[in-house]
């Protein structure tokens, strides 16, 4: 039988096949539609809330809408991401895949790309819904698409964290750890600013600073307030956010691949 000789192109094709399959798996699962439906309900709820509020209605719709989209997309990333590798081992579907001429690293990367594809569709659908509501009720701004981009960057980091934990531990531990990282990621900046000045020892200050640099700072990807209040995003901010995200994702996925490479699939 004629095979394509192994080449980087075949490697990419294999990764793509895994990604497409992961995408198909997610969009054919009930949990995806439940979370999507819940997001739609919550976005509509934010509109209702704004109608009951005195003040700038569009700001509330944008603020609440983007927060809901971000939070529920993160939940999708966490709850699909934690099972991404573990479930394949648990359900034994992985034996069929990895007995084929594909490396474990390409398998991990393919699974990650598949979930990022799902999240792309998820965020795109929700942001289009929000845009439609803003067009109807007033207050539409193209800034919400920028905000969606930043939400997607945050999802890229959260998904990479979930995949990392999924490749080394069980879904429950993965979920706890990933959510812990998400919470820490949104509070690390504030904690560092609050804690560091009060610490007397140099070691303590150094340790807090070290933790801040090691743990993700997801707040730097949060532009919801800026968009809601129509404050322009500073020059170079987007580039820095892209580099920050790329660095985090590369490190986490490399660690995932290394951890998974020699793992016994019992």
């Amino acid at each position, binding site marked *: *039988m004629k095979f394509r000789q192994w080449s980087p192109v075949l490697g990419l094709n294999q990764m793509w096949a895994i990604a497409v399959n992961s995408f198909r798996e997610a969009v054919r699962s009930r949990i995806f539609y439940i979370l999507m439906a819940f997001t739609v309900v919550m976005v509509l709820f934010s509109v209702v809330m704004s109608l009951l509020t005195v003040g700038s209605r569009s700001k509330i719709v944008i603020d609440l809408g983007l927060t809901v989209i971000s939070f529920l997309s993160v939940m999708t990333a966490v709850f699909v991401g934690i099972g991404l590798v573990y479930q394949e081992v648990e359900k034994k579907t992985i034996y*069929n895949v990895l007995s084929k*001429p594909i490396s474990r690293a390409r398998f991990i990367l393919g699974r990650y790309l598949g979930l990022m594809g799902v999240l792309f569709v998820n965020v795109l659908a929700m942001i289009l819904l929000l845009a439609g509501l803003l067009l109807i009720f007033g207050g539409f701004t193209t800034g919400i698409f920028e905000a969606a981009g930043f939400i997607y960057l945050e999802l890229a980091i959260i998904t990479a964290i979930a995949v990392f934990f999924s490749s080394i531990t069980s879904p429950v531990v993965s979920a706890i750890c990933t959510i812990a990282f998400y919470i820490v990621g949104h509070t690390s900046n504030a904690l560092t600013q609050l804690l560091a000045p009060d610490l007397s020892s140099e070691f303590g200050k150094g340790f807090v600073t070290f933790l801040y640099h090691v743990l993700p700072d997801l707040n730097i990807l949060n532009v919801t307030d800026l968009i809601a209040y129509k404050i322009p995003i500073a020059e170079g901010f987007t580039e820095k956010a892209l580099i920050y995200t790329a660095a985090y994702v590369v490190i986490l996925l490399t660690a995932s691949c290394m951890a998974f490479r020699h793992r016994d699939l019992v």
Partner: protein
Amino acid sequence: MRVILITMTNDKEAPAIEIKGLTKSFKGHLSIGRFQALDGVDLVVPGGVIYGFLGPNGAGKTTTLKILTGMLSPDEGRIRIFGEKAYGTAVASRIGFLPEAPYFYEYLTGRELLMFFGRLFGLPRKLLKERASYLLDRVGLTEKAGLQLRKYSKGMLQRIGLAQAMLNDPDLVILDEPMSALDPIGRREVRDVILDMKRDGKTVFFSSHILADAEMICDEVAILVKGKVVEHGSLDVLLERDVHFWDVSVKGWKPPAKLGDAVVVNRKNNVLLRIEREKAVQEVIDMAREAGGQILGVTPHKASLEDLFMERIPEG
């Protein structure tokens, strides 16, 4: 200590599988102690045969197969597949694998599953489409090709599993318990597919504890007990070698009521003695002749695979 010897050769005449001194242990319950799953397994599977890897549950069959397919790393030992180190991409391209009670992506249809796996082999799209259709037809699933796998019966899942194991037209097909959990019709279908594979010149290495099926189709077998190969070789030779009992038919002789461990069956004109020990056969014949009896026949009954299997498994 983890010692894995890897030998890089690419000898076309090399055996399909060569395993030397394979050991594997796992952590015990609650991580206390270690459980020795494989304890120095040696095995040679020649090319072009159907090889049965037999043993009771927990003998280490699936562990061996998982090491062969790269899911587990051995603690020690050497594996070569077609003379090459196991388990790189070059080797994987020549192997088809069906795990035990195969789990597939149940949201895919039968055809989608084959297309997905085919892409992992790097099969060109047009060829893959043809191959998928051919294999669906071969395992009798053409009409069910568009059905999601969650709606497949166990037998159908096993058949689509066999189809995916043949996607790359492999030289070696490794099957883990391919006939377990199937009804007699399903088992027969799987047996037929395995025999077809052999006819196509492939080597089939399969684990099983269904001895009747193995006896019907295997050229060679190995019996694994508690992580060790206790018997191996050509099935014909193994069963030829082990005569289970002899029937001696004598006319005109009335044997004593108790004759060692022989079972005596009195018939109208003769007597039939079923004797287990070879030495006792000659003694009985001599005794009968001395008493004026006429030996009508001595028939050795060879052991079945089940007899051989039960003899090699220590009690308990």
